[in-house]
């Protein structure tokens, strides 16, 4: 009896061991879809840095496949499906335009987890993530307000959508917190990435007297123009100091790594979920300075007292003490949005179709 028992145990052990082995040591297959070639700056490069952090964190426990240069059309559907078929367990699609393709493929692969960056549609196996980019822009506003001599700030926007408009308004709030005389004028580039157009817009701003430039587009062209003309500006998505060492005050850096790592860990532990964030534009994870999903590069080209104030604003937002959209808020044509003592909630940010005080002109319809 005892002998048999031992045999059975041994047999069971042998039978089960491969499963134990796989569950404990299996590599997690992770897929990434990039809009462009990562290059050395901007949106996709920020995701690439995130991917590198994943690699560093998990080492051989993950197997990463990436596909770059995937247009936001039928190709995206095909590539995402292919990644799913190749056994990737979690797939990060890193551009807004991948929303429908991601959802389409997710329906076909209910056991694969999908993470769509900066979209707003979710299902059981599609989670969304986004960054509170506007928090960095408030700090930019503070620095701009202290550094400007002409009191004219040139701002280059990509598209007049709420994402960009809330950034402009956050910048204006920061600006007016230190300098009530300065104003922001906005040029719409109608592109996320086009160095030529961005450079042209920067030249126009400088010709009109702006001495501080800010951008919600992706190339370092604006900073390079600023550098040539003795103006100052802020980098976007990644640290762009290398492109304009004398012009970049600091850059808001999109730090996707921690989010990616968190989600992959959840998957490994069998705890992956889409979160239960409020059902609005932001995605269920909308992290900013406080979660390190947004960081600021080193302050440079500014006196220490300005840097100190910038740091204070940064710390204030990070700790939650400083509310960027605290009342009273007025649009630039004098309409009251909220009174004193109130703060705009996240939903209201995604409904922004107006400029706050400090911005000139009107939002294009």
């Amino acid at each position, binding site marked *: 009896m005892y002998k048999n028992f031992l045999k059975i145990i041994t047999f069971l052990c042998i039978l089960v061991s491969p499963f134990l082995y796989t569950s404990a040591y299996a590599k997690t297959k992770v897929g990434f879809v990039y809009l462009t070639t990562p290059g050395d700056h901007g949106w996709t490069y920020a995701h690439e840095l995130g991917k590198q952090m994943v690699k560093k964190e998990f080492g051989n426990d993950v197997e990463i496949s*990436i596909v770059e240069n995937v247009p936001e059309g039928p190709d995206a559907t*095909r590539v995402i499906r292919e990644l799913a078929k190749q056994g990737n367990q979690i797939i990060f699609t890193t551009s807004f335009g991948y929303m429908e393709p991601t959802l389409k493929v997710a329906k076909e692969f209910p056991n694969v987890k999908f993470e769509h960056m900066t979209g707003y549609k979710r299902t059981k196996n599609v989670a969304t993530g986004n960054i509170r980019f506007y928090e960095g822009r408030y700090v930019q506003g503070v620095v701009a307000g202290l550094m400007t001599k002409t009191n004219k700030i040139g701002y280059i926007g990509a*598209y007049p959508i709420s994402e960009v408009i809330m950034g402009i308004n956050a910048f204006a709030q920061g600006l007016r917190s230190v300098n009530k005389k300065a104003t922001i004028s906005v040029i719409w580039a109608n592109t996320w990435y086009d160095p030529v157009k961005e450079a042209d817009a920067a030249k126009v701003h400088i010709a009109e007297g702006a001495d501080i430039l800010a951008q919600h587009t992706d190339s370092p062209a604006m900073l390079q123009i600023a550098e040539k003309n003795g103006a100052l500006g802020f980098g976007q998505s990644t640290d762009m100091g290398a492109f304009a060492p004398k012009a970049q005050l600091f850059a808001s850096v999109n730090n996707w790594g921690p989010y990616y790592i968190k989600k992959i860990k959840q998957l490994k532990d069998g705890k992956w979920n889409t979160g239960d964030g409020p059902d609005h534009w932001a995605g269920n994870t909308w992290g900013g300075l406080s979660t390190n999903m947004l960081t600021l590069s080193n302050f440079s080209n500014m006196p220490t007292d300005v840097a100190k104030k910038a740091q204070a604003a940064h710390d204030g937002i990070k700790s939650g003490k400083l509310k960027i959209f605290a009342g009273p808020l007025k649009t630039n044509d004098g309409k009251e949005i909220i009174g004193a003592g109130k703060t705009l909630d996240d939903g209201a940010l995604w409904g922004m179709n107006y400029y706050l005080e400090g911005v000139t002109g009107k939002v294009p319809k």
Partner: protein
Amino acid sequence: MIEFTPRKIQSSFWAILSPIISIAITILIGSLIFKILSYPVIESLYQVFVSPFSRPDRIADIFVKACPLIIIGLGLIFCFKANIWNIGAEGQFILGALCAGSFALLFPETKTYMLLFSMFIIGFAGGAIWASIPAILKVRLNVNEILVSLMLVYVAMLFIDFIVRGPLRDPMSFGFPLSKVYPDGAIISKVDFPFIGYLGQFHYGIFIILILCPLIWFFINKTLPGFQIKIFGSSTRASEFAGFNKNKITFYVLLVSGGLSGVAGVIEVSANMGRLQPEVSFGYGFTAIIVAFLGRLNPYGVVIAGIIIATAKLGADNAQMVLGIPKVVTGIFEGMLLFFLLASETIQKYKISIRKDN
């Protein structure tokens, strides 16, 4: 001194062989590049050229990718045979998609089959009208059609951008430039194969090639207008002596080419996107120029060429997924292919000799 003397007799054997040779040289130099960059050569070539055929759904997706290239390429045959350089198929594609899409969004109540049918007609008209601009300028004022058709691509891009940002923007799109989703009747559905179900994104629009290809072959090779186009292309003066109407030919080849590009746009957007967006074409109109030449301006050749180019594009994705080869590396293939093709064509048409100068 290198001298090019035209060959009197051109062998049709070499005409068929030259694309094959250029593909072979492309693969050869491609392997060299993989080797230099220390990627596994055989595995890389397998991923780029063979892996797209390794599963039924992958094969289906080749056709999905090739479909717009082939349809545009078929249209370009008319132009290039007539020696008219329509470089603006991209713009005509966009206009076709835009016109048909606008119709679908503005009149969603139209009966199902009528709706798709009208979209094809309107899409053809849209592309043809866009191509008629360089056509009219060429015929009336002798303006270079290369420049005009190319420049109109950018106008078309900005135009669709404006339309989806403004008049046709979906109010529920959170400010993003997207139109509403097409009504059901305006969507070309995926093919539900018996026993297998859906294969990749294989859709009914692809079958139009089966009709277009023989039709165009017949037109070019067996009809008088087709003959006129060929003569006009090889010798304008000869065609004038024969009494062919030069302006008419120029005008119609551009119209047909533009129209077919428009149809390609209708199919691509209706089958794969289901809504209008700022970017509907991803260089199809330009890649189709390579396809038309790679196919030796022969309709059946164009189909094969379209499949080859689509294979390389899909293979590039697979190569990156599996081996991590950047797209820029695999992207060289397309350029090399055209380069070697044109080079071999030159060798085939001209005798090259080295003459010593005194």
